[in-house]
């Protein structure tokens, strides 16, 4: 997959019909620290692992409020994520100004995706190296979308991205059918459980993670450390989760493509990820 003669420019196709620069951008997302999202009928929860470079530095901000009804979690090149968050905020403000109403989540992610696509078709640009989990509420309910550097986007019941995100996906694949009717508290707990899976044994504390919620009657906000720690204490004392249930069904229920694509290993030479 790496080091071939067709990967210098984003505007160069490979003979197999792939754009390697875009795929490399998606690699950057996989290298970022984990971020997960899950939704019920009325709430969306975003959670991320916040690793600091050293004890002396502050944690990287990975979850951003975009508007009262939309928030985003990022993984990958966080600088790109910051810039795209600013774009999303600006779009929400302009829409509110023009239409005196909230920008529907589905419209925002299309705009984001189109913006990402531009960078895959200009020789003087590079793709954004960041994956975005956009969670929000609008008239048609609660939504969770994943936006890819390739310019693709999908809607999900639950999703995880970044390093060791497969562990979180496995956990959520077992439980996702319960999410739709889940209460807000259980949704947050499931998010923390899923996040813990990505830590591979490391202790989950509120100092290394960030959790944010948006829902009916609840503006998007990041939960404070005390609240998160209280929830962690509640379930870590409760002990390990129960044994896995039925075999995993596809994560996304809307008939969209497999979530596993984004996590394909380097050895998979078959389907190009953004083809789906």
């Amino acid at each position, binding site marked *: 997959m790496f080091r071939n003669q067709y990967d210098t420019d984003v505007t160069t196709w490979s003979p197999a019909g792939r754009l390697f620069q875009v795929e490399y951008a998606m690699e950057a997302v996989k290298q970022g620290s984990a971020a997960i999202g899950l939704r019920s009928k009325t709430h969306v929860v975003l959670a991320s692992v916040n690793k600091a470079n050293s004890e002396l530095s502050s944690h990287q901000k990975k979850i951003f409020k975009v508007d009262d009804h939309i928030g985003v979690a990022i993984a990958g090149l966080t600088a790109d994520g910051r810039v795209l968050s600013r774009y999303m905020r600006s779009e929400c*403000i302009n829409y*509110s100004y023009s239409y005196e109403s909230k920008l529907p989540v589905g419209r925002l992610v299309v705009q984001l995706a189109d913006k990402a696509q531009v960078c895959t078709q200009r020789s003087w640009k590079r793709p954004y190296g960041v994956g975005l989990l956009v969670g929000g509420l609008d008239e048609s309910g609660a939504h969770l979308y994943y936006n890819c550097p390739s310019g693709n986007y999908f809607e999900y019941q639950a999703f995880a991205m970044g390093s060791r995100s497969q562990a979180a996906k496995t956990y959520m694949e077992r439980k996702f059918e319960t999410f739709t009717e889940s209460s807000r508290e259980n949704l947050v707990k499931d998010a923390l459980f899923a996040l813990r899976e990505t830590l591979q044994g490391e202790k989950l504390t509120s100092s290394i993670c960030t959790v944010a919620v948006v829902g009916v009657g609840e503006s998007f906000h990041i939960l404070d450390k005390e609240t998160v720690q209280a929830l962690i204490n509640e379930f870590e004392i409760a002990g390990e989760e129960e044994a896995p249930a039925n075999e995993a069904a596809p994560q996304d229920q809307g008939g969209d493509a497999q979530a596993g694509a984004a996590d394909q290993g380097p050895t998979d030479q078959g389907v190009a990820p953004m083809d789906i």
Partner: protein
Amino acid sequence: MPIQQANWSPYDNNGGTCVAIAGADYCVIAADTRMSTGYNILTRDYSKIIQLADKSVMASSGFQADVRALQKVLEARHLVYQHQHNKQMSCPAMAQLLSNTLYYKRFFPYYSFNVLGGLDSEGKGCVFTYDAVGSYERVGYSSQGSGSTLIMPFLDNQLKSPSPLLLPAKDAVTPLSESEAVDLVKTCFASATERDIYTGDKLEILVLNAEGIRREYMELRKD
């Protein structure tokens, strides 16, 4: 055929009056709710007051279409500020923003006569008064709009410190309590309603203090 003059104006005056009074730890902002055009009333129930931030409230009279456009611009700018600074705008900051926004349209102005009221960073009441193109000043009290010529001299009489030329030297007028200020505002509007045809119907009062914000209404003469 006699010579015809161009007679379309982009502006209209929807009338109305606004008042704001600052106290030691509160601010009262009030405006009538009558919206008119010419000698006609468009509605008896239109609010000229908007809360722009936690501690900033603006009341504007003049051309309400321009007032609404101005309010939307300030609301959007406040959102941007909150995203960038992770906090609400202070009243003095909003005051400067309002001034800059008005001057931005120096050569096609917002026909909007504003008073901005709120609490400063120390929790003291502050009132800022503006002209249509952004000239502003922090004051203890102010009124704008069609009834301002009737109200302002009365407020001067009640609130202004006596002339420094008077001897023996007299202190500033005793500061008002919150309820006294609200009563004063009601008196102002009751009187202005009598003689200003564009002021009346209902009075909307907002009181901003450390506890938060309170809204009160009072009926005014409808003729």
